[in-house]
């Protein structure tokens, strides 16, 4: 499959390329719009020149091509594959972004700090008495 991939450049319109080539079955995309934005999706089926069906770490649904940003990765999956198959195939690619990460907005890395134990009142009184 001779798929041409052009990396994202600001101001360059990907839509000028042939959409059918970019949005084949198995193409890994990033969802740009909606509440699933920022998560990885895979194209499962083509409906027409504007719409595809997507699945992966997003809700399985119909999606406009304008709401997807294609990446250079292709997966070998069948037409209308189940969500389990798609997720397994997605895990084979090394993806930098976390899977179910509701990232950016509420993302705070956990701190690995040990809890400092407060000294008990009894011990303080005893130490003061010694002094």
């Amino acid at each position: 499959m001779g798929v041409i991939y052009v990396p994202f450049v600001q101001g360059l319109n990907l839509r000028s390329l042939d959409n059918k080539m970019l949005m084949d079955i198995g193409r890994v995309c990033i969802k740009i719009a909606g509440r699933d934005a920022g998560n990885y999706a895979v194209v499962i089926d083509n409906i027409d020149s504007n719409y595809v069906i997507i699945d992966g770490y997003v809700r399985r649904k119909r999606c406009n091509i304008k709401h997807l940003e294609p990446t250079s990765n292709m997966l070998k999956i069948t037409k209308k594959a189940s969500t389990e198959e798609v997720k397994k195939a997605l895990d084979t690619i090394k993806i930098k972004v976390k899977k179910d990460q509701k990232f950016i907005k509420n993302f705070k890395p956990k701190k690995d700090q040990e809890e400092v134990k407060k000294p008990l009142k009894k011990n303080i009184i005893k130490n003061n008495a010694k002094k």
Partner: protein
Amino acid sequence: MLPAKTKSRSFRRKNIRTPGGKLVIHYSRRAPAKLKCSNCKKELHGIPRKISSKFKNLPKSKKTVSRPYGGNLCSICSRIKLKELRQ
């Protein structure tokens, strides 16, 4: 004696004619400024202009936009931002 808030201009005034035929002034707080996109300074949709005391009683879904960067960036700027984060 009138309450002190009548002097303050942070209260909006509205002349209203009552059913009895009198003219009365109603006082209410002015709405806060419109929220803007932090990148392109466009006005944001989907976030109501309410006083903080009433804003906090709203459900979470009505206070923000459910997209990442929702309530901070407009939809066009957030798309550009998400595309950049791809690499």
